């Protein structure tokens, strides 16, 4: 299969998945107990007033019609408006998506930068004390939840030492220095936990590579150990690591919610949680749909990355023996 065909089939799968996901999100959100009209009017509202508000919000119309309207709106980039403030949801989401993206991508970037050299080291010295120490420490890292890591870091570096702000967020374009200072602790908290998981996979991937025949060949033609690992191990190990990385990225987009709460960062997570508490269904639908789309995009990107890394996926022709 050519690269173009792989890409085309991926885009097709992506579109269908998105459509199915939108239906699922819509059904689940509308099946949730609780009613926005009731929440807005409070507990003392008369059934008549609630019915009137429901009609005003368009909640009395049949579900399929509302689904098609919502879907059509999203195609035009219109996510609808908040049930409470009538603010356009697109404008609410955009700045928060940027915040969450910074948090997630910086964390993953940091986790990868830490995990690859550490995992490689642990693989090369897996039978020595230092290599096993790395494994044990990474096990501990995996056991600590990200929010706890966030609280610990915040207590030590913000409260006790006062080196960094404990919470809050400043947009990059407003004050780049403050933006960086405020992202250090939340990103480190996420990166340490994700990095610990990643170290294990990187280590295993490199251990696999060390036992491959082509690695022995690389050694037999004169590559010293470390050079052989870098030259003939990286790409092959990357194949295994990319899968995990895609999963981690997806998990982080959803999991960052907790860290956003700990560090009071105005990301997608806090928007979603507030909207759920208020039964602001249009916002919940919009944010969940966005997260689903992001995860699908990440999965598609991982598949494309496979094809770029592994030439075996591009063609499967075998030569004729001569």
């Amino acid at each position, binding site marked *: 299969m050519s690269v173009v065909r792989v890409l085309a089939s991926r885009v097709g799968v992506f579109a269908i998945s998105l459509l199915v996901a939108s239906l699922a999100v819509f059904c689940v959100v509308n099946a949730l107990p609780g009613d926005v009209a009731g929440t807005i009017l409070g507990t003392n509202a008369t059934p008549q007033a609630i019915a009137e508000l429901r009609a005003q919000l368009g909640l009395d119309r049949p579900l399929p019609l509302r689904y098609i309207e919502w879907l059509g709106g999203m195609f035009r980039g219109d996510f609808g408006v908040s049930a409470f403030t009538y603010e356009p949801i697109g404008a609410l989401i955009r700045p928060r998506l940027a915040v969450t993206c910074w948090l997630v991508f910086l964390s993953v970037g940091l986790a990868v930068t830490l995990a690859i050299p550490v995992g490689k080291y642990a693989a090369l010295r897996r039978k020595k004390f230092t290599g096993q120490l790395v494994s044990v420490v990474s096990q501990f890292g995996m056991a600590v939840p990200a929010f706890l890591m966030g609280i610990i870091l915040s207590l030590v570096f913000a409260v006790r030492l006062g080196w960094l702000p404990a919470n809050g967020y400043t947009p990059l374009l407003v004050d780049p220095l403050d933006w960086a200072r405020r992202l250090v602790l939340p990103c480190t908290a996420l990166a340490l936990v994700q990095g610990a998981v990643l170290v294990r996979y990187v280590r295993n991937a490199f251990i696999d590579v060390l036992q491959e*025949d082509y690695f022995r*060949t690389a050694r037999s033609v004169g*590559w*010293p150990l470390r050079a052989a690992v870098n030259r003939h191990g990286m790409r092959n190990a990357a194949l295994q690591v990319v899968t995990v990385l895609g999963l981690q990225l997806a998990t982080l987009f959803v999991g960052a919610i907790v860290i956003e709460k700990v560090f009071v960062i105005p990301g997608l997570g806090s928007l979603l949680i507030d909207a759920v508490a208020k039964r602001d269904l249009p916002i919940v639908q919009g944010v969940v749909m966005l997260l689903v789309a992001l995860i699908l995009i990440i999965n598609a990107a991982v598949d494309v990355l496979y094809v770029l890394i592994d030439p*075996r996926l591009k063609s*499967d022709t*075998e*030569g004729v*023996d001569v």
Partner: protein
Amino acid sequence: MTPLLEVSGLNLAFGQRRTPALRDVSFTLDGGQRLGIIGESGSGKSVTALAVMGLLPDNAFLSGSIRWRGQELVGLGDAAYSKLRGDDMTMVFQEPMTALDPTMPVGLQVAEVLRLHRARSKDAARFGASAEQIVDNARNRVLEMLTEVGLPDPGRAALKYPHQLSGGQRQRVMIAMALINRPALVICDEPTTALDVTVQAKVLRLIDYELRAVQAASLFISHDLAVVSQVCDEVLVLYHGEVVERGHVAQVLGAPEHPYTKGLVATARLDLVTPGERLPVIEDFLSSAQLAGGGAANG
């Protein structure tokens, strides 16, 4: 004159296992000489080769001496060993399907071996060659080598990935990698075992021709007596990690002395097989003491 390779009193064991993989193995190899190593699976053929190459796994305990042109290799550091490997001393492996890096075009893998030991830009610059010339020279040498090992359309084959070549073609690439630096010793570990019979004969002829062309010595490991008698001058018989017999191919295979070798030769005689009759097995030729104690009974 010092021999090219002198192995003496080599003992090898792995990890916690008490049974040694090699027991007091000694042999010498002169320049240009071809020594076949035969024996059944687990007799220590491959580990002997890996010991010489210094590529034994971490849990191997090796003692004894391996001298290369008089220099002791047992205990030699990785950096010094790496300079020898792929340059003066090379190896062709058994597994053509997995022995090449699946993510790299084969031409590049051959070029790498050349570049790793030759064509260092500093050296070339001293003789007034430009960077382009060096790349051109390396390129031409790789194409020349790929042509020599009989890859069809070498220019295009060089750009292919291992999975796009057949087993025989991949083994030709391996041979190109092993010979491009004109080594003094090529260790062949069952180089044709994984190939189809017709391809086997062609690859064997190629190895024979190439070894002669660069006048390289060879340790040729095989369980196939016919293959060894075709390629080698002398043969060494390993049984349970011990050398039980060594001599000229015709002598050892024509008039074997050790019961194990007798068995090995007899079981290979397909022309003596009568349909319907039980085939001979090695054990028929060994006494019960030899069977129980392995090679130790002869030691």
